[in-house]
């Protein structure tokens, strides 16, 4: 493993409304090599509340990684992506778009909105799990995730 140990679980925010997909994703991550906590919110409005630590999310941890479905109820995932990346407090958090759409337009648009990566959700169950495990291997084992701004600022002095 390349990444330095954090000494705490990696906090993942899964923005996904399909319960079946949520369950599969959760299972794949529980099984993972790296200690992590998966938090799920069913739409973008809840997601922003989670990030803001509003209301029931007052004690929510800051996510180290966000998995975002583009097709969400209430507000479209593409808008949520734009909002997250426009907010200086959260822009550095890697967002992996994990969605059913395969269109080149969505791919380009997502990268254009500064998504860190775009992954198409396979329909096949086994493939889905493989994909999530690959996400886990790369983002949790190999990658250095960005620290919260406050902690890095303290170190820079």
């Amino acid at each position: 493993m390349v990444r330095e140990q954090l000494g705490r679980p990696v906090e993942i925010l899964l923005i996904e409304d399909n319960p079946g997909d949520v369950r599969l994703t959760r299972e794949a991550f529980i099984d993972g090599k790296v200690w992590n906590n998966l938090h799920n919110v069913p739409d973008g409005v809840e997601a922003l509340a989670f990030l803001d630590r509003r209301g029931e999310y007052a004690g929510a941890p800051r996510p180290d990684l966000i998995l975002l479905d583009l097709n969400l109820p209430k507000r479209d995932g593409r808008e949520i992506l734009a909002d997250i990346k426009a907010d200086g407090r959260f822009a550095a958090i890697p967002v992996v778009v994990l969605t059913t759409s395969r269109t080149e337009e969505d791919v380009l648009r997502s990268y254009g909105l500064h998504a860190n990566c775009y992954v198409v959700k396979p329909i096949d169950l086994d493939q889905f799990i493989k994909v999530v495990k690959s996400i886990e291997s790369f983002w949790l084992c190999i990658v250095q995730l960005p620290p919260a701004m406050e902690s890095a600022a303290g170190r820079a002095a």
Partner: protein
Amino acid sequence: MNRFRRATIFLAEDNPDDIEIARRAFKRAGLGSELIVARDGEEALRLLADERLRPDFVLLDIKLPKIDGFEVLAQIRASERHAALPVVVMSASSREEDVLRSYQLGGNSYVQKPVVFQEFMEALEIMGSYWFKVARLPRSR
């Protein structure tokens, strides 16, 4: 078919040993296609501006002479042509300020350069598999 084989990888790295190590690692991992190498920030920007070269993926060291990696990253993101080009920042440093800044400037991920070759190979396998088999990349322009 392993798309990693067909990808054009752009490597911005000043250390000639690290370049040689990377070459061997890519070959081992099955990267058959092109490897573009820039030895400093100026060369990196010049090569990126060259319309004949079409990189699919960038591995960027932040410690580059002449123009540093952060500046190169900023300019990649500011450019019309390469704004969506995936850039994985690869660096010896694990300093939090460097990691944070890389993501803030639009780097897609940050990977610390492993010291041991075996670990480098493993990281490359995972990286290659993730970016070229699992993820969708924007079409190179």
